[in-house]
């Protein structure tokens, strides 16, 4: 953040010594936090528009040009709504849960390098920090579910927690791959290592990139992993008793987290701010980061608009029997090959073509093998269920209509 202080002081005309350190930190925090808090307002609009296009609709188009002010209108509406607390709620957990949820997400922004020299805190354990802080949201979910004193809320909270903790394992195992390549957990260090190599870790470990992306999407509970707020089954899960702004805070944290996946994936696998001339013109770095983040975000939106929702047993088995073994195998293979091929001193994609073919190829091969197992398993499951249906002689359902397991 040093660079930001200096720039701020230049713009505001404050001398470096005239303000105490804490005030400078507070200003930096407020600037960073506000930037990232305003981002969802834009991305929610983008998401609505894109989802609408996927579904052959127009999307918001009444408030402002192209419906750009829709999110602001929603915020205004939420401010005017009444906050309701159930009579027998456990008050303190009930009130604290939305706060903790937002805090656990917004704190992640502290370790995202925006451009060369621009980062909230260059922690030596940055890659672990965002996982650790993110795990606070598990507790927020339990607090919300318990505090509501509602059976649906509690059931929803427990399913959510089971999902969150399950998908944290492939997340962390695939996170280990870039850490291992870069030899550091610092987010700046990982970006710099990729900038020095002149190619990004996605080429060396595409499978890890995909696993990381998927498990992150599961962590925030977007479709197809959105069982935690399955409206038709668990009536919005742990959020059922929340109304007005506290509910809005859950939504905010979800959209903010969805947005933050972009920069995190970009830093770990796509080189962060790295790009042509980024080292010389730092502002370009932020442009590259935003482009990469939005590309990742678009992947998420695409999946959200396309795929149907998992059943809870599919969700769990997809994680434990597919993602976890695959991420572990991938880590073992990637680290073995990293040891086998001595690290070159940069040189770009062309010079490192054999290395890139072997590492990326074996990573993809592992993924393919895993997918083949998954395919066989789901075919098997479908046949089993079809037999089950035949035996029981259900009049209406056929295997095609139930479409179970792994589709």
């Amino acid at each position: 953040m040093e660079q930001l202080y200096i720039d701020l002081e230049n713009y505001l005309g404050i001398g470096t010594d005239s303000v105490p350190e804490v005030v400078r930190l507070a200003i930096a925090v407020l600037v960073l936090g506000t930037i990232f808090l305003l981002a969802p307002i834009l991305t929610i609009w983008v998401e609505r528009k894109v989802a609408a296009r996927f579904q052959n609709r127009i999307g918001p188009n009444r408030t402002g040009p192209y419906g750009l002010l829709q999110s602001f209108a929603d915020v205004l509406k939420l401010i005017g709504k009444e906050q309701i607390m159930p009579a027998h709620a456990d008050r303190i957990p009930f009130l604290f849960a939305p706060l903790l949820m937002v805090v656990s997400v917004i704190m992640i922004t502290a370790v995202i390098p925006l451009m060369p020299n621009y980062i909230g805190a260059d922690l030596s354990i940055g890659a672990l920090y965002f996982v650790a802080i993110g795990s606070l949201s598990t507790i927020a979910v339990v607090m919300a579910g318990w505090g509501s004193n509602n059976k649906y809320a509690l059931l929803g909270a427990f399913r959510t927690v089971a999902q969150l903790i399950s998908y944290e394992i492939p997340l962390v195992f695939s996170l280990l791959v870039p850490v291992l390549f870069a030899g550091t957990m610092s987010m700046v260090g990982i970006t710099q290592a990729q900038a020095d190599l002149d190619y990004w870790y996605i080429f060396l470990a595409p499978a890890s990139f995909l696993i990381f992306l998927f498990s992150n999407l599961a962590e925030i509970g977007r479709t197809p992993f959105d069982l935690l707020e399955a409206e038709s089954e668990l009536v919005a899960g742990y959020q059922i008793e929340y109304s007005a702004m506290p509910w809005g805070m859950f939504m905010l944290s979800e959209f903010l987290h969805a947005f933050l996946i972009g920069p995190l994936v970009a830093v770990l696998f796509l080189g962060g701010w790295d790009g042509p001339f980024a080292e010389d013109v730092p502002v370009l770095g932020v442009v590259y980061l935003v482009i990469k983040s939005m590309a990742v975000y678009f992947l998420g939106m695409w999946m959200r608009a396309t795929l149907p929702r998992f059943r809870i047993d599919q969700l769990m088995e997809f994680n434990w029997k597919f993602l976890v073994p695959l991420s572990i195998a991938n880590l073992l293979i990637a680290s073995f090959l990293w040891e086998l091929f001595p690290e070159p001193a940069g040189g770009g994609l062309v010079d490192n073509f054999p290395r890139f073919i072997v590492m990326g190829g074996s990573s993809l091969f592992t993924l393919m093998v895993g997918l083949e197992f998954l395919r066989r398993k789901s075919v098997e499951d479908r046949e089993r269920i079809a037999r089950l249906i035949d035996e029981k002689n259900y009049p209406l359902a056929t295997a095609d209509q139930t479409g179970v397991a792994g589709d």
Partner: protein
Amino acid sequence: MELNQWAFVGVFFVLAWAFPLAPIVLNRLVAPSRPNKIKTDIYECGVETVGDAWGQMKVQYYLYAIIFLVFDIEMVFLFPWAVAYGAIGMSAYLAGAVFILLLLEGLLYAWRKGALEWT
């Protein structure tokens, strides 16, 4: 120095509560508040509530949590291992691989015993 970086995180943690708190407080000031018995009742699709929600859950949740705990605690060792990996060489790979494979064995056991099944 590292602690300077953490000072930012510390200030962030103190101030971060203000970000969600401000709109909630604003909401509370602006919006009406007229609770009544029906409104503050627990929402269960209109069906009258029987007992409180703090009832019993199933063992399956615990089994997932225990497997998660074991893999999570592994990170104490695997992160330092990954960071130091490049500097050490094949012995590091062997040590790490044995470590991971031993734990994988536990996962396979849970798999075979059906502890991963959501029933």
